């Protein structure tokens, strides 16, 4: 029986040991059952997938365990429909009815309230999804959790996001890192809280790429368009010019989307390196080492996989993303096993219903 785990100098603390063939035996029956149940099975499918992914992931010397169930995810979904879906539906109905009667201002006001509550609940949902995942993740029988319900975080989420966008979006990096810190600082694993002090300064330079984009794109477009035109002249005649023009336009559109996508990837790659690197738990420090190129490879791989399997490959995306995440996640430091006692946080009996309804990722 060891009293502590020292990870300095050893191999990666997180090792993923799954393989896609085993995962296919989980994912393909899941797909079948999800289809024949008109989607209802997907909650159980999610639980099965996570059980597999977690159990094939080793942290130091013990595998993770996913202790969540499909039923609780289903209940979470039903709760969201009853508690938020129906009131939202009713509010929208009343708003429309008021507008039809000529009370445009009140109607629009009610509509705005509905939208604002969605905004607020989106923040709460992000918090609760993370809390749910931590509370269902076990390592050496110990789980995580949070004592907060995330309702205050929802308010922070609203005002920080709004403030982030106000000065031409310049404070978006601040709002993102600050929300990351706030959310993770409220989380714990076993008896100890996470700490996060990510700084916006670390990602700000990358964020400025978004502002540079229009200029780079404009020049790029001129070049692409011009090249198209020249190619057209090469073919010759009216037809040639038309073809050249079309080639040019396609080039511009591709350049635009790929360029913007690339900037977004570059930013998020940096963002995750920064925020994970600034997150600690007790004496453990984490790092996430995926470069922009790693992300690009992951996304291109995703796209190719889905296209060349005529869409069927999408069931493997969660596998690929988890593997990517675990491959690049590192941890260092020391864990004292005797002091790592069971979490005393309350656990919700339902799953991440809100987030599921809004279809967002957790981390």
């Amino acid at each position, binding site marked *: 029986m060891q009293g502590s785990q020292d990870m300095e100098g050893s191999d990666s603390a997180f090792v993923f040991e799954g393989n896609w063939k085993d995962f296919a035996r989980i994912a393909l029956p899941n797909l079948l059952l999800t289809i024949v149940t008109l989607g209802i099975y997907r909650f159980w499918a999610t639980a099965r997938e996570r059980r597999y992914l977690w159990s094939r992931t080793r942290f130091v010397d013990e595998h993770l365990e996913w202790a969540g169930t499909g039923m609780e995810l289903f209940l979470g979904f039903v709760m969201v429909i009853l508690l938020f879906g*129906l009131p939202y*539906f009713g509010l929208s109905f009343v708003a429309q009815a008021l507008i039809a009667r000529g009370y445009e201002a009140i109607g629009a006001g009610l509509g705005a309230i509905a939208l604002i509550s969605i905004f607020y609940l989106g923040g709460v949902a992000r918090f609760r999804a993370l809390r749910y995942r931590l509370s269902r993740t076990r390592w050496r*029988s110990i789980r995580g959790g949070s004592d907060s319900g995330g309702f205050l975080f929802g308010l922070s989420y609203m005002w920080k996001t709004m403030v982030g966008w106000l000065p031409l979006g310049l404070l978006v990096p601040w709002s993102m890192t600050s929300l990351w810190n706030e959310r993770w600082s409220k989380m714990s694993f076993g008896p100890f809280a996470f700490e996060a002090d990510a700084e916006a300064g670390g990602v700000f330079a990358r964020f400025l790429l978004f502002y540079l984009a229009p200029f780079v794109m404009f020049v790029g477009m001129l070049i692409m368009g011009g090249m198209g035109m020249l190619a057209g002249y090469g073919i010759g005649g009216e037809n040639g010019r038309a073809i050249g023009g079309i080639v040019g336009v396609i080039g511009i559109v591709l350049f635009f989307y790929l360029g913007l996508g690339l900037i977004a990837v570059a930013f998020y790659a940096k963002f995750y390196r920064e925020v994970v690197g600034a997150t600690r738990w007790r004496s453990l420090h984490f790092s996430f080492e995926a470069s922009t190129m790693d992300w690009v490879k992951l996304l291109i791989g995703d796209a190719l996989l889905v296209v060349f399997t005529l869409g069927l490959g999408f069931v493997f995306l969660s596998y690929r993303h988890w593997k990517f995440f675990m491959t690049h996640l590192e941890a260092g430091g020391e864990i004292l096993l005797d002091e790592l006692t069971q979490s005393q946080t309350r656990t919700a009996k339902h799953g991440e219903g809100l987030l599921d309804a809004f279809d967002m990722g957790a981390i």
Partner: protein
Amino acid sequence: MAKACSTLSTWARSEPMDDAFEVPAEWYDGTNALRHSGVLRWDGRGGLSLQASSSRVDLNAADLRFGETRTDRTLYRRESVPDFRLILPNDLPPGLASQLPGKSEYGAWVDKLGLGKAAAIFSAVSVAAVALFMTAPDWLGPRIPASWERNIGEAMVGDFGGRICHTPEGDAALAKLLGKVDPAREKVRAGIANMDMVNAIALPGGQVLLFDGLVQQAESPEELAGVLAHEVGHVRERHVMTALLRQFGLSVLLAGADSGLTNGAVGLASMGYSRDAEREADDYARARMAQSDISPLGAASFFERMAKEHGGEDNSPALLGWIASHPSSNERAKAYRDAAAGRTAYPPAITDDEFEALKTMCADDPDVEEFEFF
């Protein structure tokens, strides 16, 4: 619970255990992260005990729950101690394996039935549910009491916020026209909406609206009579509730339960009827017009004009609402023309003055509100 590291002596007294009654085991007591490595012994009657150098746990096989399968091991939980974890090798002696809970793979129902059987049963239930959902508007719509429909209509649009045009002369002319195409004692409510669109709608709750745009381009009162009779037909044949249910069902399918935008007045304007419903409404219109001796030729020329403007045979799908969802204009023009059976002389449905009152109704109403969506 896990402080049970007491009397090993009771075990020392018993017979030496057969090797088959002992397997290596690891467990966590759930209070901390310390791993206990030792052996699991069992007595053949469901009593199990975990023994390590530092601790001993007695437990009952009936208390164990299957957790998950790992690469070469299986994880069990305890019902009475939710944080407890027991990890056993996969190749257990049959005597022990038979006492442990079976694996659960897909979830209780599917495990019980088997994947193939479960998939077949789920498919059948799903097909039935989809069929029920798809056909519900047709059989449920007409069965919803008219009073409910009126309440729904009231809730959705009320009186349209004063955007219905009123002048004494116009109201009288409209009432006269309506009386000819809606002989029932309790009339539908008809109005001319201050909206510049060539369209007309039947709303939930027996309310029919002609849009001012349609009134303006009408060349004879008979044209208006045809359109009005058609919309009254939708109300009398109970098509509105069916269309409303279908619209609701579609929005549920398309956007989950969130149908805020498609559900209000905008949605009503784009609400479509099936072609069969359109034919029924046309049949109703022709029957009423024949009863009241109104010329169907007006309606015929209206459709001929529509056919010319909107490309004839095919319905332009880009056009929402009344024109687009109807059977082809040429076909309908022919049906109305056939209804006249060569007769051309009919008494006018309303006088020229009354027709003029309808045309100027919106312009002359000083109180009418503009119709604008946001």
